[in-house]
């Protein structure tokens, strides 16, 4: 295979997006309006093409195929490669992106600045693909920084005061985090046994050299963890995410529930398993610190989600807690841990994007953003709420849905880790068991914050007044039978158009399929875990 192709998925959308942006620079408003239709085709074709290339690469790339784009400095190269873990991430985003573009086209219809929106949306695809394809820590760091740049215009997009505030905070946090991640990069470079920062399963630290400065390195690992953890919304660095929900829903859904935050988590996985290496970290105080941080985040995120009445912000808090599931699993520093982390990464991607898209569909169709306004919408938007129900149950971790599989593997990893740690590392070994308890507490909270929405949708309280405020329901509270007799206006179907529904349905189906037939995935993940730890 021609290895040059490895850089295509990263560069094609970047170039496409930049081209679109420059193209949009010229011409007057009227002319740009006319280009609207073409814009969609442009975005769709580039996205689809890129996804196809990604899939082609996923099937065709063998182990050890690498492509060096250029040499940044010394041994720091911008290098692309696609190993199994990268394939999982790449496969995930390549499915999500075309559907999200489809969704956003209807969602963003009538918006004046679609050129900007889609150009940055495309660029973000390239950057995220770059993260999946990066072959060393340097490249990962590069794309990690680029990701901040490519996504902040999208947060800023509504151009309101809140948006400015949100994007400001997003930038500060991300760049600040990158500053600490940078330290990790430098240390890996200095202490690596290969002389560069390439990702190798099991890490590349020169253990002899590293053990001599063990505490320093562990401290730096911790700093780098929190640095990348900014995007993965670990507890003290989480505050940008709830604010960032001011962005349009396709952004919140795809970027702030999947691409951006998962990139952070992916970076941490790379750092832990492919750079520092679990042999070095296992049993150290850094492991327990990381685990404790993830647990604190889970507790915090899920509790805050219950308290939050704004739907999208609630989902954002849910993302915070769910991302830390991934980190907690990865903190087990074991093959099972990595497999579980990746499993939850994939599962959560579909569940959360589905829930966000449902929220977006409701916002788009009815303009409702707060939970208490949703009374009775379940009957008016059956497909949307059906998908939401599936996503909610999956998030809670009800069996037969994808979420159960991932939680199952996380708990399994935690137990396994706990048993081993109890034997080898003494009292700290209790922590993994506590992790399971945290997982279950969070699952309960998830049930609270997700199911209240669903129940409100399907079973509105009889006295509910807000139901009257629905756009096309007249003031009287109609009983079931009466409403049957008045089809159309009174009980009109508020489900959005097909290009918003299709992604929803696809995601719901994927959740179910992943829940029922997870073996191909889990087997692959087990292999990855076995290699890397």
């Amino acid at each position: 295979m021609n290895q040059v192709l490895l850089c295509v998925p990263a560069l094609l959308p970047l170039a496409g997006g930049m081209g679109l942006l420059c193209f949009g620079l010229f011409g007057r408003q009227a002319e740009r309006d006319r280009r609207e239709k073409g814009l969609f085709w442009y975005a769709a074709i580039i996205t689809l093409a890129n996804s196809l290339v990604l899939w082609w690469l996923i099937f065709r790339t063998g182990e050890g195929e690498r492509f060096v784009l250029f040499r940044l400095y010394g041994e720091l190269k911008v290098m692309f490669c696609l190993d199994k873990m990268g394939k999982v991430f790449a496969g995930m985003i390549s499915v999500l992106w075309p559907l999200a573009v489809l969704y956003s086209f209807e969602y963003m219809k009538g918006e004046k600045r679609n050129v900007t929106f889609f150009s940055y949306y495309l660029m973000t695809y390239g950057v995220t693909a770059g993260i999946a394809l990066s072959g060393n820590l340097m490249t990962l760091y590069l794309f990690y920084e680029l990701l901040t740049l490519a996504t902040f215009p999208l947060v800023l997009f509504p151009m309101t005061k809140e948006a400015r505030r949100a994007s400001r905070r997003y930038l500060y946090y991300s760049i600040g985090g990158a500053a600490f991640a940078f330290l990790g990069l430098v240390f890996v470079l200095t202490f690596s046994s290969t002389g560069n920062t390439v990702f190798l399963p099991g890490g590349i630290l020169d253990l002899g050299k590293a053990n001599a400065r063990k505490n320093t390195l562990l401290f730096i690992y911790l700093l780098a963890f929190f640095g990348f953890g900014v995007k993965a919304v670990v507890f003290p660095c989480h505050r940008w995410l709830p604010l960032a929900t001011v962005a349009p829903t396709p952004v919140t859904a795809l970027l702030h529930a999947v691409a951006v935050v998962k990139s952070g988590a992916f970076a941490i996985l790379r750092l832990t398993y492919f750079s520092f290496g679990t042999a070095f970290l296992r049993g150290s105080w850094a492991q327990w610190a990381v685990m404790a941080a993830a647990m604190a985040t889970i507790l915090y995120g899920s509790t805050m989600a219950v308290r939050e009445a704004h739907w999208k912000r609630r989902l954002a808090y849910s993302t915070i807690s769910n991302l830390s599931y991934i980190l907690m699993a990865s903190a087990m520093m074991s093959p099972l841990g990595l497999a579980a982390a990746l499993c939850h990464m994939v599962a959560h991607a579909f569940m959360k994007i589905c829930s966000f898209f449902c929220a977006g569909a409701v916002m788009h169709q009815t303009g409702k953003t707060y939970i208490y306004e949703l009374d009775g919408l379940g009957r008016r938007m059956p497909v949307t709420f059906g998908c939401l129900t599936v996503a909610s149950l999956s998030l809670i971790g009800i069996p037969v849905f994808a979420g159960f599989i991932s939680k199952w593997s996380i708990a399994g990893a935690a137990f396994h880790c706990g048993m081993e740690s109890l034997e080898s590392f003494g009292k700290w070994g209790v922590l993994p068991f506590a992790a399971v308890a945290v997982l279950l507490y969070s699952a309960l909270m998830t049930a609270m914050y997700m199911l209240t929405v669903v129940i409100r949708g399907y079973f509105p309280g009889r006295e509910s007044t807000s139901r009257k405020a629905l756009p096309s329901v007249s003031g009287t509270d109609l009983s079931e039978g009466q409403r049957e007799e008045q089809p159309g206006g009174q009980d009109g179907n508020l489900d959005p158009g097909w290009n918003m529904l299709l992604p929803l349905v696809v995601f719901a189906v994927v959740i179910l399929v992943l829940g029922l037939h997870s073996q191909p995935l889990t087997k692959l993940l087990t292999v990855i875990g076995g290699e890397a730890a």
Partner: protein
Amino acid sequence: MEGNMILLLPVVLPVLAGITILTGKNLRKNRRMLLGVFFFGLTGGAFFTALALGGEYHLHLWQLTEYVGIDFQIDGVARLFAALTAVVWLLVGIYSVTYMTHEEDESRFFGFYLIVLGVLMGLDFSGNLITFYVFYELITLTSLPLVLHERSREAVAAGLKYLFYSIAGAFLALFGIFFFASVWGDLTFVPGGAEAVDLAGREGIFLAAVFCMVLGFGTKAGMFPLHGWLPTAHPVAPAPASAVLSGVITKSGVLALIRVVFFIAGPERLRGTWVQQGWIFLTLLTVFMGSMLAYREPVMKKRLAYSTVSQVSYVLFGLSLLEPTAFVGALSHVVFHSLAKNALFLAAGAVIFQTGWTRVDEMRGLGRVMPVMLGCYTAASLSLVGIPPASGFVSKWYLAQGALASGCGAWSWAGPVILLISALLTAGYLLPLTIDGFFPGADFDGGELKERELLGREPSWQMLAPVLVLAVAAVLFGCFPGPLLGMLQRIAEAVL
């Protein structure tokens, strides 16, 4: 997929019928067709259950993950619970046809009623802990609409309370499941628990896991400390729903504990540990507390709900002793309580349906309104109290004997004492209605009854017949307990 597909039919058929009712727009308008589908699902479910119970079937449906499969199998416990569920469901189904005419959204009720039946069957037939857990969660979710049915603010609040308690319990139990999955590896139900597992160095976490499961699954059975949902959720549901919730669905918690303790963890590993002590203590506490609260409760359905809290813990007490006689007593109490409590709730529902009375003190002179119904109520009450010929006596006798034989130190005599006190309290809260109903006293002139033309307004046969059947069964089982006890003894021998 391998094994006999017949195991799937009792699960799938009611669920499909239920979904048809829920989604079919035409069905909502055409009541006859609706009822047709409803009874098709009910009887079909019951029929195939009967068919499935006949043999030793096994079904491996689907591999969920590499190590976790969806398995069904039939054993003694499954037979007992499945048969009980099918019978009760059929009877209450008949009752509800009339009862639901004075509630809205009856199609929704029927739909979910059927789905819950299917899910319960799945629960009963589960062959491993994961499958069991799947259906356990599904029961919570599918029975929720039954609780929420009224959609009043109170009902929604109660529904949410039910939901969160159940899910919290399930997750507590999930902790244990995780533990067993990683240590046991294979979670198939084996009578007496898996043997060849080395617990060295892990006893602490093992016991913690089991205790979590006891507490967690105990939630559905209304065991202290997670019993709070039961007295809130059961009374707000429509009467047939309360009946099955109280009489059958609480038993799914019991089934869960049977499966965990006797089929996974193994009673031998638990005997004499702090987990057993704690469990016994909790059950006795619940027994006593439930009766006390019921005694003080004026609203009929709430009183019955508290009674359920107390009575189901009789069963759990019997299980917690880890002793064959008590085990038999516990399982027989599952059956007897189920029959009696269903009868009681249905009777209370009939009162509401006919008169709108909900409080016990309103029901003076009920004997003049519906004597047959009150008679059924009395029979069921007697059974629950444990007056000798009626069935409750048998189970309580076995429980007390088992307790004395169990050798659990102070518990073996404290248990029977508390059971006795509780029985007295049971008589105290159930029988006054009978007395006031038949013998309202000299000062009762029945003027109000006459005014509202309530005299002699026995409910229709569709409502009366199921109650009658249940009450009679509750009494008759006490007179002829032999076959049932024989079967239970065989189960007990297998697991202990």
